[in-house]
């Protein structure tokens, strides 16, 4: 047995040899027809193989539409008592789309630029090209797994997506190493379905969806299996605020002169320090580049060895949010409410990224609640 087809989700698997046969048949079906293309898709609209891929078209959309169109045709055939239909679309410019069912498992979509080619194509499909295609598809195996690995090169996956998938994988490995009983039936079902969705998202290069699935799954685990118990506040809270302050600093430094900005930081620092004495403990964490949240956290916990890290995290969030609010006020005065609101939305996205870790600390919904968008 040769190599399996690596495409995602097709309803059957093919050996390398079978793929070669399919390619030959597709090429034979349209040979001598200039600018013609032939695509083989499964009944769910997933691309199996293609010969002379058409340029400048959204192939996944076309495949999904062709599958949908054929599914209705198949139903129509049943309604009117016909065994099967072939489909032909005609265009003003002479272009023809011909859809031919292959062994009740796949569809051949042929794109021709002249109606005169249609009878020739039909002849070839009734002959050697069609027979070979039918034989190969009929002999193809059912997929070994519901969702085979996606056809995506690792190097093409953006770093952010890789980070999310790695985090999720690490978490799952941790779970597997736990003493028995962690994976309930529900959890297994949820994880399988989540995995399938993730594979599909990666397969179609939908990075946004892939990140959402990773984050959603981790959140689900934190809610349902308590896997995030034992999160260390020192590894979450200062990192979150370092990221928030970096974003804010970039926004304010664009509209306030550097010396004025440093003055403002010092002013806000001293104002905040009156209320949050244990948080704003070391002015040395201030520099023209802004406030170093990680250093400030470190200074706070070092000052009191008996400090409860969870309790301190709550205070740290309160103090930092006050500072964030003041810096947002600077943005508002310099650039107006729209700019402030836009920035708040960006900052909220950062907070959202940390939600899984804020959750077990009891800080989900607490961080960021002091600086909502203005009406």
């Amino acid at each position, binding site marked *: 047995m040769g190599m399996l087809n690596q495409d995602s*989700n097709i*309803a059957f698997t093919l050996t390398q040899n079978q793929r070669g046969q399919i390619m030959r048949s597709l090429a034979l079906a349209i040979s001598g027809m200039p600018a013609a293309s032939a695509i083989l898709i*499964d*009944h*769910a*609209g997933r691309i199996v193989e293609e010969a002379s891929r*058409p340029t400048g*078209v*959204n192939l*996944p*959309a*076309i495949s*999904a*539409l*062709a*599958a*949908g*169109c054929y*599914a*209705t*045709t198949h*139903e*129509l*055939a049943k*309604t*009117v*008592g*016909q*065994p*099967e*239909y*072939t*489909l*032909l*679309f*005609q*265009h*003003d*410019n002479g*272009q023809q*789309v011909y859809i031919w069912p292959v062994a009740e498992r796949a569809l051949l979509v042929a*794109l021709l630029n002249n109606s005169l080619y249609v009878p020739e194509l039909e002849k070839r499909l009734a002959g050697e090209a069609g027979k070979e295609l039918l034989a190969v598809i009929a002999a193809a195996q059912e997929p070994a797994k*519901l969702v085979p690995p996606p056809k995506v090169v690792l190097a093409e996956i953006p770093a952010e997506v890789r980070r999310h998938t790695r985090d999720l994988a690490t978490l799952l490995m941790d779970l597997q190493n736990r003493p028995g009983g962690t994976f309930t039936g529900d959890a297994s079902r949820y994880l399988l*379905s989540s995995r399938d*969705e993730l594979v*599909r*998202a990666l397969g*179609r290069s*939908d990075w946004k*969806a892939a990140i*959402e699935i990773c984050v*959603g*799954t981790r*959140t*689900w685990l934190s*809610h*349902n299996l308590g896997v995030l118990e034992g999160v260390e506040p020192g590894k979450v809270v200062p990192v979150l605020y370092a990221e928030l302050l970096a974003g804010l600093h970039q926004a304010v430094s664009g509209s306030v002169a550097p010396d004025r900005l440093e003055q403002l930081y010092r002013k806000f620092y001293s104002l905040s320090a009156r209320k949050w004495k244990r948080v704003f403990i070391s002015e040395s964490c201030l520099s023209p580049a802004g406030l170093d949240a990680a250093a400030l956290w470190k200074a706070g916990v070092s000052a009191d060895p008996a400090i409860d890290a969870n309790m301190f995290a709550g205070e740290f969030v309160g103090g930092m949010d006050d500072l964030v609010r003041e810096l947002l006020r600077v943005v508002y005065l310099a650039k107006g409410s729209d700019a402030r609101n836009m920035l708040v939305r960006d900052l909220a996205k950062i907070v959202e990224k940390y939600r899984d870790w804020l959750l077990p600390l009891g800080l989900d919904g607490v961080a960021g609640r002091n600086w909502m968008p203005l009406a």
Partner: protein
Amino acid sequence: MAIIHEEAKEITCKVVYHGTGMCGKTTSLMYLNGHLPASQRGRFISLETPTERTLYFDFLPVITEARGYKFRYLLFTTPGQDYYEASRKLVLKGADGLVLVVDSHRTRLQENMSSFQLLNKNLAEMDQKPELLPTVFQYNKRDLADIIPLDEAEKRFNPRGFASFPAIARTGQGVYETFLTVARKSLAKLTAPDGEARMGPLFRSTVLSAEDDASLAALLERLNRDSGSFGSMLVDESSGTLARFGEIPAKDFESMGALLACNFTAAQELSFNLSRTGFTGIIQKGPEWSMMATRVDARRFLVVFYPGGRDPMQFRAILATARRGLAKALEGVDSRSQGRLKAFAQVFTSVNRIAVAGLGGQA
């Protein structure tokens, strides 16, 4: 867009169930299919992938009669998976009412949001303002652990304050109520002052008088005779059959209309994606029956049934003449529909509640 045959007293409305993948749209339709009396439902059609996900749409016609009027609600679901976005938009075309199914599980929050954002985008692309479409929210899977509270769901998904119901589609809780409400609202939209005038062009209703029915049938009869075809149908893209004449190889016209409409719109969209040029028609070749569908105007198309093996190019000129005649007749129908709908509204208001009551709602 509703299709109203004045003389036959038939009203057809399209209701679309929309939501993210696996949120319970198909399950809702399956529940209705399993619990409505056989006399009040047509054939349930599910076009699904080998992994049982909706590929294009599910379809269930619900039929009721009241005060001599026959009401058909054509219920569709859209495919939830992202991969099928192109097909999803087609199902939305010409909807009279929307059921937005929300998966209440907290982890699906973002997917629900994205799905509704896409819906708004799809409607905007069809020049339809989402807020003008009668809409009902069905907050599904309320039996799961870790679901978002209803007030939070309302705040997040339903800022316009449309009617909403908590539901468990698996057991049927809330499914019937949701459907009755959207059915009622779809009818109420027709009677609302300027309710139709503000709709997008693909979402406006068609009212056919007895004369319209007769003139369309006469045109189809002539086409059949001149072309040697068995029969022909005039179908709206939103799935309703406007007229038919001759021998049509099916008894179940609701399903036939829905399948033809979705088939045609998918073919058209596919063609546009490929060639960016005009779409002439679609030919479906079978051994005994073949059919050809071709566009008549922006919303309607003509389907001709002819003997298998015959080349439709032979009656191309006849078909072109028929298309022109039908387009002209429909232009007249469209210009009169608005006025007729107003007159019809007086009758309709009294029928409205009763029609829904026929399905088990309150009179």
